[in-house]
Every structure is written in structure tokens, then in C-alpha cells.
């Protein structure tokens, strides 16, 4: 290298230093970092609950914490992870940072609404944290009635208000993305030239806007039942507790796709960048995102196969659930095919992407067990389902989130982290994850129910393996936290295009200026259109 690379003289991080310049910013990149701080905080809170859960389950007897405490731990683990990490995680951090950069825009369509959505998120999280510190919540993250409405004595209402409020932040983010993608694309950037990251965020945004109001209404009904004894879900007042499950899953199943679709978008970007190659079957991958978003609204009943549903309703939900597997499979096959004759770099983000494909494949295939009604009866509400959704949510979404964070970190910070540590921790996370969750498939088929504080002793060995894996996984998550923070100040400065990737975000400086591009870009090429020679690449 002839001369050291310097940070650009002017970029979004040195455009004002005070607290006010952050808390009142309208820059999507700074708001993304505000979200990053928020979701990282809630991830480690949720993770701390998981550590306590796994410690308790290392022995069959309920001996570490009381049963009520255990019930609160798994509830708050779920609430924190789902509503305050997984749902906002990729869209509000990476999406916020990258959607305008990838489409050549100056910012999102509504910068003030974007900032408002962060404040709404924090206010909602504050309510939920209030319920955590004032005695906790013990309903399970699913809030099933009538337990949550008439039986639980824990702080249901503040937690519910928190989730209700946070929902609006999700709706506003989705709305902002939809309008931005429609209206602010650079000249020449047609729909079928968009990066697949944009397609998947667009699909997820549709779900956020259409699905989230349903959970908001449902939560209001739970609160009304609790405070005013409306009896909507209380059978002794003529209500129906199963109605709650329909309403809850009508949102919460699509919410799974809010969590996984943006992750799939990240993976498409990572595979393309580290194979230096166009994503195989671009249009099929793009439309599979929309297919998942649409079908995802039609499968909620598969959470209720044992809840007294009619046989025919169960069969319809079963067949639709199998159909949703097809677009997911299409993505996996296309990513694999993309690697064929690629120029594959074994960088940290690629390791995460490869890990994602493997774990998501297992997570998706074990979903077929649950869609098969006759088999779901045995495995639902057991550790099999716990393992399945952690393969999707942790093996899928968190792997993609970390992969994306590592990939765009040079863009976000202008610096690179310690790559050796990064690879070691990626390997630890992969190994720790599998050791934690694979034994749970076996436990589930053996019949160990989920949400059990104490369990029969014959299940102990598998639980000990799982707890051992969780400790490796926990350390694996702490290491990136440390070296990423360290790199912010001491990391080696890298150029505009550290990975030698194409994509509009790599054409501007690292970190980008507040207005993103010195000259508004004009696009005359397709996504992932790798030239014969990679230009602007400073390794």
C-alpha cells in the first residue's frame, strides 16, 4: 500500500458532536446507530434471561430460581428478543442505514418520522422494561388468554402498553421504507435493478404496515379484559379464549417473516459480494420475498392444531403452511447456485452467510414436521418447537444480522475490526448454537414440554449439553461486542469499498457524508453487475 488510507474530511459521524446532534438528528445513518444502541442493549438483556434459563435447566429439579421467577425469565426473554431485538433488529438498524444508500437517495422519505419511530420504540421499551423491573411478566411472550387476562398477577398491562406503543414504531418504519423505495430511487434504478436487500425490506415493510395494527388491537383487548373485565376472551362471560390465539397469530406468524425476510435480504447481499457474482435467479429470489409475505398472512392457524380447531380448518392451514416452504426453498437453492463458479472470499461476513444457509435449511425443514398436522400434534408445545424457531430466529436472523453488521461495518464506521477475532467468534457462535439447540430437537421428540421449570431426570443429559452450548454461544456474542466497539477508535481505516463489492452504498465514502452522495447517482446497470475488473477496491 503506497500511502495510508485516511477518513474523508467530512462524514456523517463528524457532522456535529454534541448529544443534541444525535438525539435530534434526522440523518437515517445516525438514527440507525441510535437503533443499534437500543437493540444491542435489549439483546443483551434478553440474553441475560436466556443464561439464567439455561442455568436453571442444567438440573432437573427447579432449584436455582423459584417457579414464578422461571416463568418470568422465559417470558421476558421472549418479549425482549421478539419485540425489541428481532423485529426491529435488521430493518431499523441495517435497513435504516442502507435503504437510502442502496437506492441512491439522500435520506428516507420522512426523516422526522424516522426519528419519531426511534423515540416511540424507546418509549415502548421503557414501559416494558418498567414491567420487568417492577415484578416482571409471567404470561409467556404469547400472552395466551384467559391466563393473561384473569389469572396472571404479574405486570401485564405495562408490558402490553409497551408492546402496543412499540408497534407504532414498526408501522412508521415500514411506511417510511415503502414510500422511500417507491419515490426516491435514483434515476435509472428500476425495480428489477434493485438490490435484493431492498426487495426483502419492501416485503417485510408490507407486513409491518398490514399486520402490526392487528396485534395492537389484540393487545388493547387484553388490557380491556384485565382492567375493565370486558370478558372478550373470558368464557365465564361468554367470551372465547381461543379467539385471542387467532388474533395474536394473525400478526405474530407474519411477524416471523418481518424477522426473517430482511435477514434473507442481507444474505443475498453477502453471497453476491463474497462470490463477486450476480445472485442466481434474481427475479425468482425477489418474487419469493413477496410470495412469503403474502402466504405468511394465511398460515396463522398452524399454531393452533391442538387448540380445538376443526379438522378441515387444520388441513387448510396445513397445506398453506407447506406452500410457504416453497419460496423459502427457492431462496436456499438460488443462494447455493450463486456460489457455483463464484470468486468466494472466506471473510467473516461470508462465514456468517454460509452458517445462515445451513442453519436456516435445518430450521426450515424442521418446520415441515410442524406443518404436518398428524406429527405436529406430538411435537407442538415441546422443545422440538423451541429448537425449530431458534434455528430460524437465532440461526437465521441473528446470523444474518451479525453477518450484515460485519459486512457494512467498514461503511458504517470507516474502519475494520480485528478479522482474526471475528472469524473465531463466528465459529464459536456456529458451534455453540448447534450444541445449544440441536439436542432440543431430540428432547422435543422425547416429549419434554416447553416452559417447564422442572423436568423428569431422564432428560438431564440433553439439557446439560444444551446449557453447555449456551455458554459458548454467550461468549461468542460478547466477543464481537468488544472488538466492534474497539474498532470504532482503533480499527484500521479502510477505503470506500473495502470488500470490492458493487452496490451504490460502496460508491460513496466510508463513512458516507450526511447527504450520502457528493453527486446524486444515475444507475445504468443491473444489481450485482460485476465488471471484469474490480475497481476502487482497497484491501
Amino acid at each position, binding site marked *: 500500500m503506497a500511502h495510508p488510507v485516511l477518513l474523508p474530511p467530512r462524514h456523517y459521524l463528524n457532522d456535529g458532536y454534541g448529544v443534541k446532534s444525535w438525539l435530534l438528528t434526522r440523518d437515517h445513518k445516525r438514527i440507525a446507530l441510535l437503533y443499534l444502541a437500543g437493540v444491542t442493549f435489549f439483546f443483551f438483556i434478553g440474553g441475560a434471561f436466556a443464561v439464567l434459563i439455561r442455568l436453571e435447566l442444567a438440573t432437573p429439579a427447579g432449584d436455582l430460581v423459584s417457579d414464578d421467577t422461571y416463568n418470568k425469565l422465559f417470558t421476558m426473554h421472549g418479549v425482549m428478543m421478539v419485540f425489541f431485538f428481532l423485529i426491529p433488529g435488521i430493518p431499523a438498524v441495517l435497513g435504516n442505514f442502507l435503504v437510502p444508500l442502496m437506492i441512491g437517495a439522500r435520506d428516507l422519505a420522512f426523516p422526522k418520522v424516522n426519528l419519531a419511530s426511534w423515540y416511540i420504540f424507546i418509549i415502548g421499551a421503557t414501559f416494558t422494561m418498567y414491567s420487568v423491573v417492577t415484578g416482571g411478566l409471567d404470561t409467556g411472550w404469547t400472552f395466551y388468554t384467559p391466563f393473561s387476562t384473569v389469572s396472571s398477577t404479574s405486570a401485564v398491562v405495562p408490558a402490553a402498553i409497551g408492546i402496543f406503543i412499540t408497534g407504532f414504531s414498526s408501522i412508521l418504519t415500514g411506511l417510511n421504507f415503502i414510500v422511500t423505495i417507491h419515490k426516491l430511487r435514483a434515476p435509472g434504478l428500476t425495480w428489477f435493478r434493485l438490490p435484493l436487500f431492498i426487495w426483502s425490506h419492501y416485503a417485510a415493510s408490507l407486513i409491518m404496515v398490514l399486520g402490526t395494527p392487528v396485534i395492537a388491537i389484540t393487545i388493547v383487548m387484553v388490557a380491556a379484559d384485565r382492567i375493565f373485565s370486558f370478558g372478550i376472551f373470558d368464557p365465564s362471560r361468554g367470551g372465547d379464549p381461543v379467539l385471542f390465539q387467532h388474533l395474536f397469530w394473525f400478526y405474530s406468524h407474519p411477524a416471523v417473516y418481518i424477522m426473517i425476510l430482511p435477514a434473507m435480504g442481507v444474505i443475498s447481499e453477502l453471497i453476491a459480494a463474497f462470490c463477486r*457474482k450476480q445472485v*442466481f435467479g434474481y427475479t425468482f429470489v425477489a418474487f419469493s420475498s413477496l410470495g412469503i409475505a403474502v402466504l405468511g398472512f394465511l398460515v396463522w392457524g398452524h399454531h393452533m392444531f391442538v387448540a380445538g380447531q376443526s379438522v378441515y380448518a387444520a388441513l387448510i392451514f396445513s397445506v398453506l403452511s*407447506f406452500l410457504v416452504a416453497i419460496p423459502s426453498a427457492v431462496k436456499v437453492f438460488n443462494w447455493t447456485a450463486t456460489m457455483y463458479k463464484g470468486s468466494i472470499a472466506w471473510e467473516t461476513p461470508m462465514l456468517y452467510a454460509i452458517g445462515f444457509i445451513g442453519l436456516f435449511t435445518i430450521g426450515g425443514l424442521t418446520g415441515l414436521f410442524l406443518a404436518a398436522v398428524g406429527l405436529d400434534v406430538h411435537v407442538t408445545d415441546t422443545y422440538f418447537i423451541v429448537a425449530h424457531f431458534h434455528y430460524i430466529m437465532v440461526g437465521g436472523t441473528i446470523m444474518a444480522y451479525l453477518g450484515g453488521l460485519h459486512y457494512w461495518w467498514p461503511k458504517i464506521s470507516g474502519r475494520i475490526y480485528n478479522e482474526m477475532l471475528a472469524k473465531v467468534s463466528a465459529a464459536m457462535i456456529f458451534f455453540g448454537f448447534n450444541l445449544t439447540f440441536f439436542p432440543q430437537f431430540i428432547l422435543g421428540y422425547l416429549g419434554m414440554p416447553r416452559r417447564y421449570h422442572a423436568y423428569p431426570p431422564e432428560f438431564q443429559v440433553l439439557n446439560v449439553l444444551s446449557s453447555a452450548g449456551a455458554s459458548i454461544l454467550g461468549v461468542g456474542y460478547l466477543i464481537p461486542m468488544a472488538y466492534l466497539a474497539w474498532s470504532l477508535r482503533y480499527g484500521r481505516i479502510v477505503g470506500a469499498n473495502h470488500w470490492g463489492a458493487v452496490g451504490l452504498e460502496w460508491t460513496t465514502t466510508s463513512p458516507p457524508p450526511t447527504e450520502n452522495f457528493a453527486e446524486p447517482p444515475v444507475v445504468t446497470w443491473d444489481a450485482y453487475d460485476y465488471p471484469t475488473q474490480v475497481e476502487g477496491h482497497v484491501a
Partner: protein
Amino acid sequence: MWSGTPLFPDAVSTMAPRVDALYFYLVGLTAFFSLLIAGLIIYYAIRFRRRAPDAIGARIEGGTILEITWTVVPLFIVMSIFVWGASVFFAMSRPPDDALNVYVVGKQWMWKFQHLNGQREINELHVPVGRPVKLVMTSEDVIHDVYVPGFRVKADVIPGRYTSLWFEPTKPGRYHLFCAEYCGTRHSGMVGEVVVMEPDAFQAWLSAGGAEGSLASAGAKLFADLACNTCHRPDVQGRAPRLDGLFARTVTLEGGARVVVDEAYIREAIVNPGARVAQGFQAVMPAYQGLVTEEGLLQLIEYVKSLRSEERP
């Protein structure tokens, strides 16, 4: 370390081998596709690793034939799973006609079982081997779930309605019974055992102990205690419908809808009689919501079931 650690559950009902067969089919598919994808990824990652810093991948846009193949082939595979899973579920949903009925009431945090002859038990369910058993279940408070892993059966137990499941045990022994729907503080303590006995031993167990008469006779007593018989009389059909021979018949409601008189309808007609009134009657019956226990309701239902009629068609 592994001694005493099972890796596969007991399979002790007629349904268990059917569920397990489907499970093995899916395990096979999962292993095949996971290894295929993982193998390809690892092979490509090594075979096509970047050899020069500026190297780029080959220009390949896609292939329609491949896309169609990996859409249609998985579609056929998942449809085969769907059909198989549906056929198992149909069998699970249709209890044989000769099934032995046992009533189940769940409450935080215990299971109460009532056999037809009046024998009651808590957190233990005795059943004979080789005979289908149907559980008719409800809850006194929140949603619970009866789960017997060895039988591969599970069903939610829901307040305000009856759900059911059935199984036919194939091997005597004691098997776990779990509550599988989170129900509060002592959810993980809401466990019990299914005791599968040889038929003779079961009969001996059933007739031993202090059963205070059959469920139907307990229901008859309750029927009189609650003064139901002042209106529901066997001789005249005046203010209230006659109940003899009513069970399993189809009756016409006010407004013309028709309903089969089953456990759920009888329950509703007691706790909330105004909801679906039989044609030709006034909605004059008081609601018994909260006045009769769930077990009392089950006794009344058994009583109504026991009222056979010779005269009525």
C-alpha cells in the same frame, strides 16, 4: 453418562408407530437436503475460493429450467408430507365408537379424572391395554393441555368448551402425562402418569375403592338437587324440552338453525341457556354459569346421555 438417557420415546399406543413412520420420513428428507445443501456450499466454498484479490465470479444470471425444477420437486415432496400428515390426523380425530369415555377436568395445577362408573382419580389415569379410550376434557380456569408423549397424542383443555382426544394403549406400564400449555406458576408440576393395566387388573381397580355410584346417578341426584326436574319432566313437554332420548339427536332451534345435541350443546344449554333455544320454547331457564362445577356439568351430561327413550324415534 448416556445410560438412562433415552434418545427416542416409548411407542405404546396404536397411533405411535404411525406418527413415528411419518417422523422418520421427515428426518430422512431433512438429513438428505441438509447434507446436500451443506455439502454443496462447503464444496463450492473450497473449489471456487478466491485466488486473486481482484478476481470476480463467472457471469451466470440464472436458469429457468433449474428454477422450475427446484420449485416443482419440493412442491411434490411437501404435498406428500401434507397428505401423510393429514391421514394421520384424520385417524387421531376420529375416536372409535366403542371407545371407553373418561372425563377430564384440568385446573391450576392438577388433573381430575372421572370414570363413567364414578371412580375418580387425580394426576393418575388408569386405563386398560388394548382398548380405545376417549378423553372428554375441559378446564376450570385457564387453558391446559393433556399430553402423553408415549401415545403421541396431545390436545388443549379449554375453559368453556369440550375438547377430546383418544388413544389405544398397546403395552402395560406407567407413562408420563404432561400439561403442555403454559398455565402459570406450577405448570411444570401439573404432571401425572397414565397407568396402563391388563384388562382384568383394570376391572378390579375400577370396581375397588369407594366409588359413590356412577356419573349418571350422581348427575340424576344433582338434577333433582338443582330442581331441574320441575320443568324438564319425563312425562309432559311443557315449559322445557323433554330430555329422554335427546342425546345425539338433531333438534331445531328458534330461528330455524339445527344443532346436534352433544356434550358441548348440553353444557351451553345449562350455563347459558338463552344462547340457542330449542324451537317452541321460551328462553325462561335461568343461566347456571358459575353455579355448577365443571365436574357437576359432566355428571349432568352423563345423566342426560343415560336417559334412553323407547317411545321416541
